[in-house]
């Protein structure tokens, strides 16, 4: 896997040799310091395990309420889907779609696509549409904003906590865990390893 290869820095276009090093490792560009690639410990196996975890967490995060508000005996709960629906019903379709897109659709696409690629790959099978799905993974990872959403939920929790009883729900913890898991996926996933697996040396 760690053959000496040539790499071009994505930020300054410098051609440079790859230096093989043991896991875990991170390669930086010699000129501008951009991250060329990261390689985590467990390889694709770990990435797949984390992806499955993240999918479960994402499902939980949307099945249960994120926050529960209680005031004067009236109680309301909020889920991501519910928030988007409420915005839509208030004539804000663009905002609703944007919220859904960045907090649910993109993370889901990234995780599902990654699983789609990795699961058959365990048995050496190349899934159909591999290249397109791979591009989807790269695109989705740039547009997902789960950690921003978690922070947004915390800010709302504090803001509303002044005037009513607000309780965090199961989904908030789930989103928080999802945030951490997706960060470790990003740290452990090496696309070069993915392609290398496909075309065995």
């Amino acid at each position: 896997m760690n053959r000496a290869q040539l790499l071009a820095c994505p930020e300054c276009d410098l051609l440079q040799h790859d230096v093989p090093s043991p896991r875990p490792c991170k390669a930086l560009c010699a000129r501008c310091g951009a991250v060329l690639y990261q390689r985590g410990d467990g390889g694709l196996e770990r990435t797949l395990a984390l992806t499955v975890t993240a999918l479960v967490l994402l499902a939980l995060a949307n099945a249960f309420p994120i926050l529960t508000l209680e005031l004067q005996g009236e109680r309301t709960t909020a889920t991501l889907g519910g928030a988007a629906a409420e915005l839509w019903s208030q004539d804000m379709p663009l905002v609703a779609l944007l919220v859904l897109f960045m907090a649910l659709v993109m993370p889901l696409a990234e995780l599902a696509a990654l699983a789609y690629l990795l699961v058959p790959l365990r048995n050496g099978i190349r899934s159909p549409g591999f290249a397109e799905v791979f591009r989807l993974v790269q695109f989705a990872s740039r547009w997902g904003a789960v950690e921003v959403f978690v922070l947004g939920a915390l800010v709302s929790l504090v803001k509303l906590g002044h005037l009513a009883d607000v309780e965090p729900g199961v989904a908030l913890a789930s989103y928080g865990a999802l945030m951490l898991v997706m960060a470790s996926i990003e740290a452990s996933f090496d696309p070069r390893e993915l392609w290398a697996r496909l075309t065995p040396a």
Partner: protein
Amino acid sequence: MSAAAELGVLACGMCGLLSRAPAAPAAACPRCRARLAFRRPQSIAHGWAYLIAAMALYVPANTLPIMYTSSLFGSSGDTIMSGVLFLWDSGDWSLALVVFVASIVVPLAKMIALAALLASVQLGWRSRRAERARLYRLIESIGRWSMLDIFVVALLVALVQLTALAAVRAGPAAPAFGAVVVLTMAAAQSFDPRLIWDRERPRA
């Protein structure tokens, strides 16, 4: 040290494979079939377009109310800034700071930095390349955090629907601000940072 483009080598933005540029004007990566180009096409033009649009929408995003709170006693609108001030007044300094940074500082900084980067590349500056590269990296990484206020508004709108007592509605600044976030992210993505390091002035 030579850039790959100088040697006629195309680097795939998706999978990182290096390939020799063909004679034809359009090329695709042999491994992942992504479209290949030496530099992102129309990078500067698109960058300015998105950036100016974002700047134009930034004004209403901050002057119009982003959220309406109504109760038995009337209705009032909150802009992004007044929301920050409210948090500050309530004693949540840390939160006020977080929202201030995410919703006001970050978009402004992004827009200014991108404008600077685009201008610097267009004017053909050679100095401070490393700093400019770092600036670009910073912009790319914090871009998404401006979505914070939008998420807060979305959750408040979903939660505070208590009919008679209190109800929250999203205001016109919400889609404007959302557009600002998307546009600045698009502008940062369309800007090709390799242009900073090119020895020649870019063609487009």
